[in-house]
């Protein structure tokens, strides 16, 4: 039924704006579009007010392309740069209060399940490091402990970008930023470890340089969250303004940060592996029978 909103009202198709026509005729709803086809279809997120060279925007764009069921997906966010782009996408976006995105997503996910029964409705949280690890920390962790079935994506630019560059819990130790005039005094928070302790069924760290990998992680995270449990993706999405990264060096920076301290990691719980294999045919998670060679 949700695909109805990308149909023309009979008799009005000739009068619809080009943006809408493109969305209906060349959009991704109800189709299996992938990041490798980008440029050949109308994306759900195209225009945005973000800074030139923003890695976060590229990541958000990739993430939205990767949603397995975009026409039935609601995004939830909080204050920060990310929501300026997410809220311009052609899918629903909820903005609650400061740092309460995982609380809102908990209620939303449960409310949708009650209302729509067996229909699949995905909820994806996308919030910055301040929203996820600082002000929203309690609600993030508790949503994981409660095993809420939605995906949390941290847009980790290691700074409060939207408010002008203050340190966050995810800033690396020693970084000099506004509100850290002598350099940050403590280590970057290990949210991945906390996600594991709290029982997330899928956890990944990524950078936006490798679109296929981002797509793969997002897809798995959203699918697992439907039935198995909470999933967490932490993405390095540098703030080129606050960290003075030249626009044309943003991807270079991401690559070097990935090589240095933000390596790709992926954790899939045993339940999640079995679910992906059985339900969605993920070959890499199909359990092969152990062949025992008789000892001669």
């Amino acid at each position, binding site marked *: 039924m*949700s695909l109805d*909103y990308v149909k023309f009202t009979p008799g009005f198709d000739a009068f619809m704006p080009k943006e809408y026509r493109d969305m209906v005729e060349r959009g991704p709803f109800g189709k299996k579009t992938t990041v490798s086809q980008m440029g050949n279809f109308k994306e759900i997120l195209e225009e945005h007010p973000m800074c030139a060279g923003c890695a976060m925007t590229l990541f958000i764009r990739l993430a939205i392309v990767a949603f397995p069921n975009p026409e039935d997906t*609601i995004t939830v966010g909080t204050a920060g740069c990310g929501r300026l782009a997410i*809220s311009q996408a052609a899918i629903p976006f909820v903005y609650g*209060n400061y740092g*309460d995105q995982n609380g809102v997503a908990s*209620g*939303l996910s449960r409310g949708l399940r009650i209302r729509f029964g067996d229909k699949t409705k995905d909820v994806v949280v996308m919030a910055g490091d301040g929203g996820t690890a600082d002000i929203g920390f309690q609600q993030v962790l508790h949503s994981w402990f409660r095993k809420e079935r939605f995906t949390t994506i941290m847009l980790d630019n290691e700074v409060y970008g939207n408010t002008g560059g203050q340190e966050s819990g995810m800033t690396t130790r020693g970084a000099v930023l506004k509100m850290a005039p002598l350099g940050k005094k403590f280590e970057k928070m290990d949210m991945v470890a906390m996600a594991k302790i709290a029982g997330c069924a899928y956890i990944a760290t990524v950078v936006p340089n490798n679109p296929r990998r981002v797509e793969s992680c997002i897809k798995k995270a959203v699918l697992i969250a439907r039935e198995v449990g909470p999933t967490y993706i932490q993405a390095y999405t540098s703030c080129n303004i606050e960290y003075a990264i030249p626009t044309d060096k943003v991807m270079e920076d991401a690559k070097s940060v990935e090589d240095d301290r933000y390596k790709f990691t992926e954790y899939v719980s045993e339940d999640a592996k079995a679910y992906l294999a059985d339900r969605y045919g993920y070959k890499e998670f199909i359990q092969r029978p152990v062949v025992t060679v008789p000892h001669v």
Partner: protein
Amino acid sequence: MDNTAVIGAKTKKGQVITDPRMMMNDAPRTPSFFTGSEVIKEAVKRANVDVMVAYPITPQSEAAALCGELFAEGYIGDYFRGESEFAVMSQCAGAAFGGARVFTTTAGPGTMRAMENFPMWAGARLPIQCIVTCRGINSPLSIQPDTIEIAYLMNTGMLVWHAETAQDFYDWILKGYLVSEEPDVHLPLALCCDGFFVTHTKDVVGLTPAEMCLPPYDPYRSPVPCMDMECPPVRMMRDPFVMKSNYISYATHASWQQEVWAAAERSRKHTIAWLDGLIDIEDGDADILIISSGTAVSQGREAMRLLADEGVRVGLVKVKTLRPWPEEELREATKHASHIIVPEFNVIGWMAKEIKATIPNSERVVAGPRVCGGMTLPPEVIVEEVKKAIGMRSGVLAGRGG
């Protein structure tokens, strides 16, 4: 979905979805001896609630826990404990965004901790019902009833009702959904009572049949698109106008705030119909009037009786809804009064201030007596205030000096 189409159908739990007017006005009532907390449970049982989020804080903990029993019995679609009051209210918001009928309870400091959510609920037009079992909020600690938190709630854009008795509580929980879910209202409701005095005391309450329940919430009657991907465009914030033009931001925000308050005003006609008026009047022709809300009304009623024994005729006005505020009704009710006594369970006297701002010749208003911090308000104290106002000699109350 047409809500009336489901009337007569059975819920999963076997309750019959009943026409609300029949259920509330005509159905037989069974007198039952319950605490206020148990009454909350009985009302929720018949309210067809989809999601309840709970958190412990005295004195609402018991009611929140009893609703858990309802969930276990299958009367509530989903129930869970949040991790703080702020989180609970955010979770309620999410569930309401998802199109569910949502219920929660809070009290005192919890209400204040959750405060960021209440104007957000109103602005997002989420018809969540939140029971507020008032208690002290400020340091030093008191867990006893004190209605100061109502003063804050009155400026959130929510509907705010103040129940006097357990019977009010029972009826208003059910009627609250009927008013707040009207398409031209669609606002959250803070249904307040004085903690302990109502929640922890037993009273005889007339209950509607347990096999009847309200029709389910229909999110498509919302004046704003519900978040379900079923109807476009469904963006909570379409184009972040704050980044484009401060002028657009001011204008959008200002016009929407006015619309929210206009929606509260539009609730009057529904509320008057369901609550039989925004105020109740007893002996309204009297020259002296006691006006209050909540259990201060009960104490005022007892003071009336004591004064009548001494030959002093006093009338009583019970204010049922604080938002919308019964402005016209109070002007009319106080037209002939020479003295207006306003007893309250709080230190700041928000009720007296509201009344003074509403009626002409506000020097008639005696802003008191007031007790706070959870103290009881003996009717004798109200009697004394009345006598003082009209220049009658009164005996010295214990502990009040000579």
